[in-house]
């Protein structure tokens, strides 16, 4: 059945085309086509996973697409344990988010187009996961970027939404530039872009270590952009301008994980180029700490989750950089479910109270039971409370930092902050007294299409991590691994420490935001510089504006002036000069050339007019000429 796996991405593509071309007018049919396509893909992916669990071998299909003398560009699919894991994650979350969107986007004037975009995204993401070479993955990489742009700016009437779309597109483009440089480096040194061939060369030491490190860092640039890592993380919080299901699907569970997937896929490069691996790990932990610290003080429910996403992605990247393939991908798996769930819950809350500011929420627990429980479970999961899925993956990540004390301390710090900000969110949203009575009165539980995905994801948020319980003989690490399968070892100390850290984070949030025995305002006043810095997101947007955007704009306006003043003047001068030359030539043409031609004609004509006099048409005159001629000739003869 693996030969036909290309059908998984193909169905959403067909659905996109059909909706766009034929069924746009029919909202019900459009959404049904889109959900139907992804559901078939989901079932197929589950089938593939079962198949792969039975026989964990690699399967590759490749076709030459463009053959050049030195290298050929290929299309193809590669199926192994990582691919099937990703396929299941992407199709599951996509399917649930699309069902959820039925309720959330209900009444939107561009309902059908929304589903078309979601289908296009699903196609691109599944293609990215299935691709068997760097060239093809780059194509899908850009396609997911495009759909991300389209969906962030879906409500483009809002200027902030269209701006956010542009910001996301341009920021990720910076990373993609590095990605393509990395691909070119690989093509130069390896002479091929096929994953397996490149990795075989990397492992065999065919590629010089320096070049391999450089290529690894450049490829990581792409992941930095797409997975919103420091210093290109600024686009993801703004991307929350898009519809919330989009945030859940693209900007939490799947697309932003593409960077992590890419690093995981390229593990052979980082394993053989330790410098590049260290760069990856450092960027990852910086991002994790930075984003988690920002999330502590934000008030917009979606932005908190966005920074949480950035921070968790930093976790995964760090784990991969430190060489723990299993930890990074496992966290990708569990994070996809609980973060999608968090976003969908946030969407449900926003749907109910029509605000995103947690300062105006509160006490919603009784009114939205399913949403509350789902969000509560997801928060426990992300905070890393056993035995929820987040605990097991976070545990793996902490384990991966063994031997790197700095990383370990920072990882635990992030875990603490994560638990704190998630429960700050929970307490402010669902507990206490309503701070906006009007919004509270209107709040209601969301429709069935929205709560059903929440319940399914809730189950997944609890159970997905169980595949990696260290006491299992055939656990996750025996299925998804790099090089050699390695049974996970339970580290009781780490389990204990991380649980304690998570619980203390929750406890602090409980004291500050539920019991109110520690005043949040007092803390904010006491650490005012720190609070302001965090509240303003470490001033990244301002710094980029000052250091990059303003100078670039100044440069461009300077260049524009140069263009306008100098280049245009020269061009216009040559234009005018040419006109003048043409005028001279026209005068010459009219008077000299035409004059010569006309003069010749006139000369011939007037000579003809003269000669014509003889041709009277009088036969008698002609006869006279004949006779006259004969007489003259006779006279000449005689004389």
């Amino acid at each position, binding site marked *: 059945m693996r030969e036909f796996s290309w059908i998984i991405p193909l169905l959403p593509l067909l659905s996109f085309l059909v909706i766009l071309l034929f069924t746009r007018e029919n909202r019900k049919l459009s959404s049904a086509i889109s959900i139907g396509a992804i559901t078939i893909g989901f079932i197929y992916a589950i089938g593939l996973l079962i198949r792969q669990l039975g026989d964990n071998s690699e399967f590759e299909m490749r076709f030459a697409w463009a053959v050049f003398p030195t290298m050929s560009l290929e299309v193809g699919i590669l199926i192994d344990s990582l691919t099937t894991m990703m396929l299941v994650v992407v199709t599951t979350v996509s399917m649930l988010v699309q069902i959820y969107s039925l309720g959330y986007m209900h009444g939107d004037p561009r309902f059908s187009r929304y589903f078309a975009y979601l289908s296009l995204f699903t196609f691109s993401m599944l293609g990215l996961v299935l691709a068997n070479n760097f060239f093809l993955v780059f194509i899908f990489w850009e396609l997911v970027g495009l759909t991300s742009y389209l969906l962030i700016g879906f409500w483009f009437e809002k200027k902030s939404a269209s701006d956010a779309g542009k910001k996301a597109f341009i920021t990720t483009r910076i990373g993609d530039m590095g990605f393509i440089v990395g691909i070119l480096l690989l093509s130069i040194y390896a002479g091929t872009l096929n994953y397996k061939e490149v990795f075989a060369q990397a492992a065999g030491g065919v590629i010089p270590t320096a070049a391999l490190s450089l290529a690894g860092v450049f490829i990581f640039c792409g992941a930095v952009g797409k997975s919103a890592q420091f210093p290109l993380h600024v686009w993801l919080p703004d991307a929350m301008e898009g519809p919330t299901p989009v945030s859940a699907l693209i900007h939490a569970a799947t697309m932003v994980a593409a960077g992590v997937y890419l690093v995981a896929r390229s593990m052979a490069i980082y394993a053989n180029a330790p410098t590049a691996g260290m760069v990856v790990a450092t960027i990852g932990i910086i991002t994790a700490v930075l984003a988690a610290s920002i999330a502590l003080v934000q008030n917009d429910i979606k932005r908190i989750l966005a920074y949480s996403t950035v921070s968790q992605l930093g976790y995964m990247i760090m784990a991969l950089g430190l060489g723990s393939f299993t930890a990074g991908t496992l966290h990708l798996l569990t994070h996809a479910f609980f973060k999608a769930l968090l976003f969908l819950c946030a969407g449900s809350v926003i749907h109910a109270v029509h605000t995103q500011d947690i300062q105006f929420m509160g006490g919603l627990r009784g009114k939205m039971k399913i949403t509350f429980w789902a969000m509560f479970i997801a928060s426990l999961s992300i905070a890393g409370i056993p035995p929820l899925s987040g605990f097991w993956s976070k545990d793996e990540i902490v384990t991966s930092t063994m031997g790197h004390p700095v990383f370990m301390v920072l990882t635990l710090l992030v875990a603490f902050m994560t638990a704190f900000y998630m429960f700050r969110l929970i307490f402010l949203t669902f507990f206490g007294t309503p701070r906006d009575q009007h919004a509270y009165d209107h709040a209601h539980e969301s429709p069935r299409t929205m709560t059903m995905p929440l319940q399914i994801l809730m189950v997944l948020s609890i159970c997905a991590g169980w595949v990696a319980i260290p006491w299992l003989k055939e656990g996750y690490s025996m299925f998804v691994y790099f090089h050699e399968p390695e049974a996970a070892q339970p580290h009781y100390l780490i389990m204990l420490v991380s649980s304690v850290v998570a619980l203390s984070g929750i406890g602090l949030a409980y004291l500050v935001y539920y019991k109110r025995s520690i005043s949040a305002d007092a803390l904010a006043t006491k650490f005012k510089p720190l609070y302001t810095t965090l509240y303003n997101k470490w001033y990244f947007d301002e710094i980029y504006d000052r250091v990059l955007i303003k100078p670039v704009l100044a440069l461009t306006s300077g260049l524009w002036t140069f263009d306008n003043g100098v280049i245009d003047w020269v061009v216009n001068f040559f234009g005018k000069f040419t006109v003048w030359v043409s005028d001279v030539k026209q005068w010459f043409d009219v008077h000299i050339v035409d004059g010569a031609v006309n003069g010749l004609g006139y000369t011939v004509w007037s000579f003809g007019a003269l000669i014509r006099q003889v041709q009277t*048409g009088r036969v*008698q005159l002609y006869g006279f000429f004949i*006779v006259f001629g004969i007489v003259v000739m006779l006279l000449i003869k005689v004389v």
Partner: protein
Amino acid sequence: MEISLAHYLALAAILFGIGMFGVLTRRNAVGILMSIELMFNAVNINLVAFNRFVTPADFTGQIFSIFVIVVAAAEATVGLAIVLLIYRNFRDIFVDNINLMKW
């Protein structure tokens, strides 16, 4: 003074010249036809004169001139018929005015 061949030839030349002058100068079609008759007759005189003075034993010149007279008569008939038709169509027999075929 005996009349010699030269006299006949001179007479014929003068007659021919008068005929030619008529052909070239007359505007009247009938006049032109008459002048042509003069030229024929000048030729006939020549033919008869040469027959008399050069080969008196034969009658070839005289027979030839009889042919000329017969043909000329036929020619005059056709010519006058054409002139008559022209006159009927144009009410005019001045050759200058009959320029239907002139460009």
